[in-house]
Structures are given as structure tokens and as C-alpha cells.
């Protein structure tokens, strides 16, 4: 049975990723074991930046496009969700609308930068983001100008929101699952029976999820609120509201970069001319990469707006966002997806913790700047890439030592 074999392989895959699963589990139970709202708040911020860093890695790390316009996606996401929330539209639909805007902006940016590559791509995207930034700064009715606009935080504890939240999560899970198996579905060498089985399973599962989960989750939340055994606070929900999209998006992005499309991204990064010679429409793949990145970055922005409660063009559209995300990516390691996310976590933690350290805390920006310099000088390939490189050589050395020892032993015994 091919299907059962695949399930076994899937389980094996999972067991190989024990560390990742443990970390994920730790994040999931974290709000229930600690009363610290500060760390929950900090972690939620880390998740948002990690999502942005992941979206940036698709463009920079995988497609090799040095984009300086990531702030535009993030900012448009933040503003769209802020506007929609001000119009009393529920949060989850607002997120999806923001993602649509991100995709549109990504496409526009891709079209604008059609003729350029390399450093000029960086400049076109920078110009694009800066034009958007200038428009927003000057158009006060739209953006609130320098003082910005305050975001109405959606009522996370309202039953309507909980239903939407559950629905959104269900849809996201279904999408993830579909993406996880859709590649197997279209593979021609699979027998028709397996493909039909897969499709039926997905449809059944999605239907069940959408039918049962929202109502049940609503009941659970209602119950827990009434009994107040687990206190459901706004922060609690916000923590999950950022963690779940991050995890889902991580898997989606992982799937994208290991799909045929993702392979072509890498081909474009490695040698654009050769990819063109092999018959791939490089422009189309750059467009796809930019649009996908826009979607995730806009989602990060849309999550950020109700988190920070007040946004202005400088804080969400400014070039600082792009610079920060560049630094996350460099620190973590380009083209690894998890690397930039780790980088985002480390830098956010440092930026929040350094100011409270005595003596050097006063000059924390300076300390952080020096830290960047040291990282770039001594870890130019980022944490994850360096670790993989060094890890591989260490493993190889060990292996060589073992084989030599075996050979020596064999020689002695014979």
C-alpha cells in the first residue's frame, strides 16, 4: 500500500524533527504556565517580526532579489487592517483583505522592476517603498500624518471574533494540509486510487473542521470564560493570534521553497541567464516570488497594527523596517527560512532587554550596532548557515575518525 507507506514516512519525518516539535509545543503551552504578560507581549512581537523575516527570505534568500521595499508590504498590511478595523469589520476578514493588498503591491513592484536586476533592483524597490512612504506622510487624512492613527483593537473576547478566529484557523489548517499533499496529488506516477483517496480525505477533513471546530471552540471559550478556570485574556489570544499564523505560514513557505516553483526561484538566484536559457520565464518567477512575499509581509503588518495600537507612516512604512529585516536575515542566515526567523527573535529580544541592563543599557542602540558589526564581520553567512557548515565538518571529522579507527582495529585483529 503506497498510502500507508507515505504516512509512515510522514511520521518518520516528524520524529526526525523532534527538536522543532518540542519548541513548538513549548510555545503552545507557554501562556498557560507563566503569568508574565510582559514575555507574552514580547513573544507576540517576535512572532510578527519572524513572519516578516520569513517573507523577506523568500525574495532575498531564495530568489536572490535584493529588495529594499519590504516595508511597503508591511506598512500597507498594517494600514489596511487599521482602516478596516476602524470601519468595524472583523479582524480575520481584515487580515485576508490586507493579504490581498500585499499581493497586489507585490505584483506592482514586480512589474515596475521588470527591466532591472542586481543592485538596481534594490534601488527600484527602495524608490517604490519611499514613494509610498512619502504619499502616506503627506496624505494626512489617509494615514494620520506624523502623529499617525490609533487602531481600534478588535474585541478579542467577543463571541463573533472567536467564531471568526476559529474559522480562520481552520481554513489556514486546511490550506496547509492541502499544500502539504497537493504535490503528491498532481504527481503523475501515483496511482489514481491514491490520488482520489487523498482528495477525498482532504475534502472530508476540511468539511469536518469547518463544520465542527468553530462551534465547538466557541463553546469551549464560552465555558472557560464562564467558569474562568483558564483566564482568557486579550494578550493570551493575541499570543496565539500571532503564533498560529507564523507556524502555518512557515509550513506554507517551506512547502513553497521545496516545490518545483521554489526550485526555479533558486535557479534564478544562482544564475538568471542560465535559468532563462533553460526556458524559464524569469520575470514570471520573480513576479510570483515578490507577490508571495508581499502576502506574508502584509499579514505580518496586519497583525502588527492591533498589537501596537497606534501606527504612523514612519513606524510601519519607514525604511527602518526594511533595514531591520535585512539585519534579521543576515544574522540568521539567508536562504534557510528558519534562520531569519531566529534572527528576528534574537534582535527583538536584545532590543527589548538591552535597555534595562545597567551601564551599557544607556547606550543600547550603540551596543546593538556594535553587535551587528561583529556579526557581519565574523558570521557573514549567518547563524544557521555557519552552524550547518561547521556542523557538517565536525560530523565528517568524527565519521572519518571512526572509520580510521575501525580500519586500524580490523588490521590489528587480522
Amino acid at each position: 500500500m503506497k498510502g500507508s507507506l507515505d504516512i509512515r514516512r510522514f511520521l518518520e519525518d516528524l520524529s526526525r524533527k523532534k527538536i522543532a516539535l518540542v519548541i513548538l509545543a513549548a510555545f503552545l503551552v507557554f501562556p498557560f504556565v507563566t503569568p508574565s504578560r510582559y514575555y507574552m507581549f514580547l513573544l507576540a512581537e517576535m512572532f510578527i517580526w519572524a513572519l516578516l523575516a520569513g517573507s523577506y527570505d523568500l525574495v532575498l534568500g531564495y530568489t536572490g532579489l535584493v529588495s529594499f521595499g519590504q516595508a511597503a508590504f508591511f506598512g500597507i498590511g498594517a494600514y489596511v487592517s487599521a482602516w478596516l478595523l476602524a470601519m468595524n469589520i472583523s479582524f480575520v476578514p481584515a487580515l485576508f483583505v490586507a493579504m490581498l493588498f500585499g499581493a497586489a503591491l507585490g505584483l506592482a513592484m514586480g512589474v515596475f522592476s521588470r527591466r532591472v536586476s542586481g543592485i538596481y533592483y534594490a534601488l527600484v524597490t527602495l524608490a517604490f517603498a519611499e514613494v509610498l512612504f512619502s504619499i502616506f506622510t503627506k496624505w494626512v487624512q489617509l494615514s494620520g500624518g506624523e502623529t499617525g492613527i490609533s487602531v481600534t483593537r478588535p474585541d478579542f473576547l467577543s463571541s463573533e471574533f472567536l467564531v471568526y478566529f476559529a474559522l480562520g484557523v481552520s481554513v489556514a489548517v486546511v490550506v496547509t494540509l492541502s499544500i502539504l499533499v497537493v504535490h503528491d496529488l498532481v504527481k503523475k506516477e501515483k496511482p489514481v486510487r491514491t490520488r482520489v483517496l487523498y482528495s477525498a480525505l482532504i475534502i472530508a477533513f476540511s468539511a469536518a473542521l469547518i463544520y465542527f471546530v468553530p462551534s465547538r471552540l466557541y463553546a469551549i471559550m464560552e465555558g472557560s470564560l464562564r467558569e474562568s478556570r483558564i483566564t482568557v485574556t486579550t494578550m493570551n489570544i493575541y499570543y496565539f493570534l500571532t503564533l498560529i499564523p507564523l507556524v502555518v505560514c512557515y509550513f506554507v513557505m517551506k512547502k513553497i521553497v521545496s516545490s518545483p516553483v521554489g526550485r526555479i526561484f533558486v535557479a534564478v538566484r544562482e544564475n538568471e541567464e542560465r535559468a532563462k536559457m533553460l526556458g524559464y520565464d524569469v520575470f514570471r518567477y520573480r513576479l510570483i516570488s515578490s507577490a508571495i512575499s508581499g502576502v506574508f509581509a502584509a499579514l505580518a503588518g496586519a497583525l502588527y497594527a492591533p498589537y501596537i495600537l497606534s501606527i504612523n507612516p514612519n513606524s510601519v512604512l519607514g525604511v527602518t523596517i526594511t533595514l531591520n529585516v535585512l539585519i534579521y536575515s543576515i544574522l540568521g542566515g539567508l536562504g534557510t527560512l528558519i534562520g531569519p526567523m531566529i534572527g528576528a527573535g534574537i534582535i527583538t529580544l536584545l532590543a527589548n532587554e538591552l535597555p534595562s541592563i545597567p551601564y551599557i543599557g544607556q547606550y543600547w542602540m550603540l551596543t546593538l550596532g556594535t553587535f551587528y558589526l561583529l556579526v557581519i564581520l565574523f558570521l557573514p553567512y549567518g547563524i544557521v548557515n555557519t552552524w550547518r557548515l561547521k556542523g557538517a565538518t565536525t560530523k565528517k571529522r568524527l565519521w572519518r575518525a571512526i572509520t580510521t579507527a575501525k580500519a586500524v582495529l580490523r588490521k590489528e585483529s587480522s
Partner: protein
Amino acid sequence: MIDPSLIIPALIDGLAFAMLLFLIASGFSIIFGLMGILNFGHGAFFMMGAYFAVTLFEYSNNFAITLVGASLFGLGLGVAVHYLTLRRMEGNPIAQIMLTLGYLLIFSELVLIVWGRVSRIFYPVGLIGSITVMAIQVPIYRTFLIFFGLVIAASTYLFLTRTRLGTIVRAGTEDAGMVEALGINVKRAFTLTFGLGTALAALGGAVAVPWVAATPDMGTNWLFISLVVTVVGGLGTFKGAFYGSLLIGILHQLSEYFFPQLTFVIDFATMMIVLLIRPEGLFGERK
């Protein structure tokens, strides 16, 4: 809407602004042309020059000494930065960008620590005020800036075309490997050129202070506008930096006078249009 009596003052401001832009953009462009480094710290050198000039003027009270001191300071800082760190990053453009960005962060913070958040300004004696020529008020300092900028542009041009180091720089822009093969120490030329570029930027910062004042955010602002200038003129070319400065400087000041809402939109839109029609810039060479 457009007041015709404002056109001449706007043009004078535009030319003066163009000269400041030229001082920062020429170094930026030459550094990119020779070494392929997109120096994101260039605005920070401009800012350091400005603040250093503020302090120097407080002590010396002499404008000439201030300008010379600021350029020497920029030279030393640039040589140190390139020799100690940037040199190791050759062939890794992203790391170079990151490193120079790191300097932008560090210098901006350093300025906040040393000089504080308030903007600083000084007035050189004899260059303040304005004279009336044919019923038009002409600010003396801005006129001085135009002439000063032209002198510096001419001497930089002569330096590039008439001296040995200038020839090496021009040859290196064409093909650095070939120059090295001829037995010339290109590495040293790199460091010196980087220092010269930052010296020009620091000088620009110093002469900019009496007009625009030194502020902690000038590092980023001037970096972006010099980026626009060099891209419009053609990255890596001296000529492009000069004409690009003229174009953007005048355009910027005209829009500042007549459509203040749109100043930066116009700058970046110009850059985008140029990049779309002629990606190599108005004076760049098609590769």
C-alpha cells in the same frame, strides 16, 4: 499658483542644494564605481562631518580651518573604516551593505550621545545675510555654496584626470583586475579612494551646516537623496553625479517652493522613471 518672482530664488537655492548633493553623491558614486560598494554609511559620514564642523567652529571660530579640519576628519574616518573592516568584505555585496548600514546606525547613535538631540548650527562671519541685486534678495551663503561647489567639482575632476591616483581610480572603475595585473597596488587605491569619498562627504556636511543645520537624522535623509542623484545620473560615474546633482537639486528646490507636498515623491518618482527607461542612468554606460 506659481509666483514668478520666486523662480530666481528657487533656482539659486536649487543650485546651492545641487552643490551640496554633488559633494555627497560624487564620493558615493566613485566608491561604487571603483569597488562596487553601495556605501549606505555615506550619509553618516556627511553627518559626522557636519557635527565635527560644529564643534571645530566653536573652538576655532574660523570657517576655513573648520572646512579643512572636517575634510581631514572625514578622510581619516573613511580610511580607518575601510582599512579595518570593509576591506575584509570584498566580493560579498550584501555583507558590505550591511556593514555600512551598521556604521550608519552606530554613527547616528554616537551623534545622539555626544551632541544630543537638538539641531546645531553656526554662522560664518561675513557670509551671512543677503544682498539685493536688481530688486531680488540673494542670500550670500547660498551664492557662496554655488561657487564653492563648482571649485570643488573642478578640482575633483582635475584630480581624477591629471594625477596618478586619479588615473588608477578611473582605470580601476573599468577593470580593477587588469589594473592589479599591471602591478599597481589596487587595494591601497581602494582605501584611499574610500577615504577621499568620505572626505568629500564630510566637507559637504561641514558647508551644509550654516544652511540646513546639523540634525541627528540627516545621515539617513542625505543618504537617500544622494542615492537618487547617483542613480539618476548613472551609478559609478563622476559626470553622472555632477549632472544628476544639478537635475535633482533644482527639481527638489523648485518642488519645495511650488509643491511642498510632493518634494520627496517627485525625487523618487524621477529616480523610478529613469530606472525604468534607462536603468543605467542618464550618463551611465550601457553594459
